[in-house]
């Protein structure tokens, strides 16, 4: 059998320069697997094929079948096995081919993985990652933002980055964390952005939001793809003299309450933008948080721009109606700024 080893450098470690979010996530996994043999990857089609979005492309060649474990189509088995592996001190990174399918293993995640440490002192150092979000005509079962099911589950941590460098730094933090971490990867962002990675072995702390744009007139809190929409809206608003401060949450659980409250105390107005559906979305939680911690500082009602309370529709005009966009954010911010 004659065989030439595949050129890994092009797959695993992209050449220096700006890279996409897919490459950044792959780099994080590669670096963590190389650093610590306790890190293993498990999921459907993550090996030879390299994953549905090629996030794990090249890992099998480098780390072999014992560490890049291709499973049957069985999400409960994937999460259960990853959980069991973590009990022996491994740090599995489980892939949901699409994060929508995490519904198939909801029990395993919320009842077994999330509760182990609280109930019987068993830490579960695992990561569940997968592509999420809409805007790519994926239809109702390949576009969901199910993060709030898990934000409502004590014991989990929930991360939803918006940039390649954050994705890399946060995934590394997630893998090193002693708790189960859900890592949402917005598939609209996978290949649309490029960014230079900070040098060396860098991480981004879990639970810390970042101010993407400073402003004085109102605060826009958002995350993932909508963080970019919020920034675009802020640029539009600036043309009208409205200076919006944009906060990118990055981590949804635990929530960075301090950054939100500090900003609202400065701007006195709050608009929350998220791609998740409206009822039970994190906007409601943030509104309650601001009422509890900064009610006296508010000059206007807490506003929110969210997706509709429907499943994610498939056809482009329907999905466009469903999703928030820059115009909707600008309109809501304009109204809020009048107070």
């Amino acid at each position, binding site marked *: 059998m004659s065989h030439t080893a595949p050129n890994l450098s092009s797959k695993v470690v992209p050449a220096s320069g700006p890279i996409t979010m897919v490459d950044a996530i792959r780099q994080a996994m590669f670096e963590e697997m190389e650093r610590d043999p306790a890190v293993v990857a498990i999921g459907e089609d993550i090996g030879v094929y390299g994953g549905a979005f090629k996030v794990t492309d090249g890992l099998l060649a480098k780390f072999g079948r014992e560490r890049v474990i291709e499973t049957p189509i069985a999400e409960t088995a994937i999460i259960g096995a990853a*959980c069991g592996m973590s009990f022996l001190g491994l740090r599995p990174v489980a892939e949901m081919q699409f994060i929508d399918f995490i519904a198939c293993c909801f029990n395993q995640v919320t009842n077994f993985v999330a509760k182990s440490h609280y109930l019987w002192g068993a830490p579960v150092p695992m990561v569940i990652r997968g592509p999420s979000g809409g805007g790519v005509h994926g239809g109702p079962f390949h576009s969901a933002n199910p993060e709030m099911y898990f934000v409502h589950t004590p014991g989990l941590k929930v991360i939803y980055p918006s940039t390649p460098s954050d994705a890399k730094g946060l995934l590394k933090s997630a893998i090193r964390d002693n708790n189960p971490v859900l890592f949402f990867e917005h598939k609209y962002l996978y290949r649309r952005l490029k960014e230079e990675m900070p040098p060396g072995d860098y991480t981004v702390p879990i639970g810390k939001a970042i101010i993407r744009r400073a402003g004085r007139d109102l605060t826009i809190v958002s995350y993932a793809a909508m963080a970019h929409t919020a920034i675009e809206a802020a640029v539009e608003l600036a043309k009208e003299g409205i200076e919006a401060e944009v906060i990118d949450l990055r981590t949804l659980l635990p929530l960075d309450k301090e950054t939100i409250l500090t900003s609202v105390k400065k701007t006195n107005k709050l608009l929350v933008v998220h791609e998740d559906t409206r009822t039970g979305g994190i906007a409601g939680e943030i509104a309650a948080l601001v009422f509890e911690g900064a009610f006296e500082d508010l*000059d206007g009602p807490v506003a929110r721009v969210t997706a509709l309370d429907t499943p994610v529709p498939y056809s482009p005009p329907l999905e466009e109606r469903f999703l928030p966009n820059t115009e909707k954010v600008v309109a809501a911010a304009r109204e809020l700024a009048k107070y």
Partner: protein
Amino acid sequence: MTQSPSQATSELATSPLTRTQHLDLYYYMQLNRQLEERMVRLFRQNKIVGGLYSSLGQEAVSVGTCYALEKRDWIAPMIRNIGALLVKGVPPRDIFTQHMAKFTSPTLGKDGTSHFGDLKVRHIVSPISMLGDLIPVMTGVAMAGRYLGQNIVALTWIGDGGSSTGAFHEGLGLAASQRAPFVLIIENNQWAYSTPVSRQVPIQNLADRGAAYGIASTIVDGNDVVAVFQAARYAVGECRAGRGPRIIEVKTMRMRGHAQHDPAEYVPREMFDYWKARDPITLYEKYLSENKIWDAAAKSEIDARIERELDVEQKFAEDSPLPPPELAEEGVYCDGCHKIEADWKRAKSEVSPPKSSIDPTWRLKDLPAYTQAAIAGGNGAKNPSQSQTPAAAPASSPATQKSAAAPERIRPQPEPPATHAANAPDAVAEEPAVPRVPFGRGPKDKAFRQSPENPQNKPAYTRAPKEKSFAQNPQEKSFGKGPRQKPFGKNAQGKPFTKNPQDKQGRR
């Protein structure tokens, strides 16, 4: 606790037990029963605040299976496996205090029943109330143990009721495909709460399900502790030797209701009578006497020891305090309270590059054998229980490539329906000969779309040019409309912001 060192598997099934082992089995079964009888009394005194699930009549299953394991092996008990916890070395006080919700319990009062574990010393994974979830979890434990070179076996139990859950099937599928050193005891106690087995599963033996996964299985009389032990010892030995997972179905009977509140009036009286005459402890006492393994003095010595031990343990539990309320707020996250470190029994270099690096392609070793099997079905398929494929590699793969440079996926041949006819009377009918009637405008009906019958002969909906496939858009594009304007963190005007004092006037 006495446990035999691992031996060649052929000896394992047949080698006789020593007297100490025989008496150990009795001790643990009787301890299990007396402990539970005491808990029934505590329950009636309202000293057990939650549920109490009895394993009366099933002691031989918990004790016989767990006694076949070694200290390094892992278990995950179900609620009726208190005997297994005792064999693993859990002191009875832990079980008393768990049920009584005391601060001294293993979970500090956060959970009850047998819902507790011990990762470091006794290797016990806590169950949750949702059935079947332990099967994939223990499969993962088995896989991790193999990966770390620990040569362990992971074992868990499931009831006849739990064998209908999705997690059961997903877990077994993964265990089989990974050839994990995992033993599943299907504890067929005839009743899933109030539903008899016959109304849950339309087959006689739950062990038969193993064949569907390529998992070797066996059936054993669950009220014969020696038979249970020997079956388990054999299965554990096979697992440890790397021959893949095993299933043992034990036939037994739940002699009480689902829990204490349930008088089990739905169980036919004759069933209780039959199984009462086959009580596992009575049967075993008779066996020990008939084989002159013990005498009356030995029995009363063990019984007295159990009473003494349980007196002390129960008193400890009763005297223990309830947890302080503020404990409810603690422990959601591990914030450095645990040191997580794998116990490596093999060189890490074996699983690190360059040693771990492989050619990541599926290969077909024997094309004629493959094509024969693909069409005929069955004959060419490898039986995982006999395969000697290295543990971590999938047993076989229905895909290949022609050369290393040009990977190619092979489309599996459709199986002729006739081969299924014998065992699948409800097999899906063949495609009807008439052409498919297009549905609506039929954008998905390729055949129709491409046929001359299609008046338009083109897709009904054309994507706008901006909606390119999202995977093919390397350029930095904006979200929504228009080009990206500014990088993060920059003011649109490029100027620092100053707060307008007018904004704040009139506040408060």
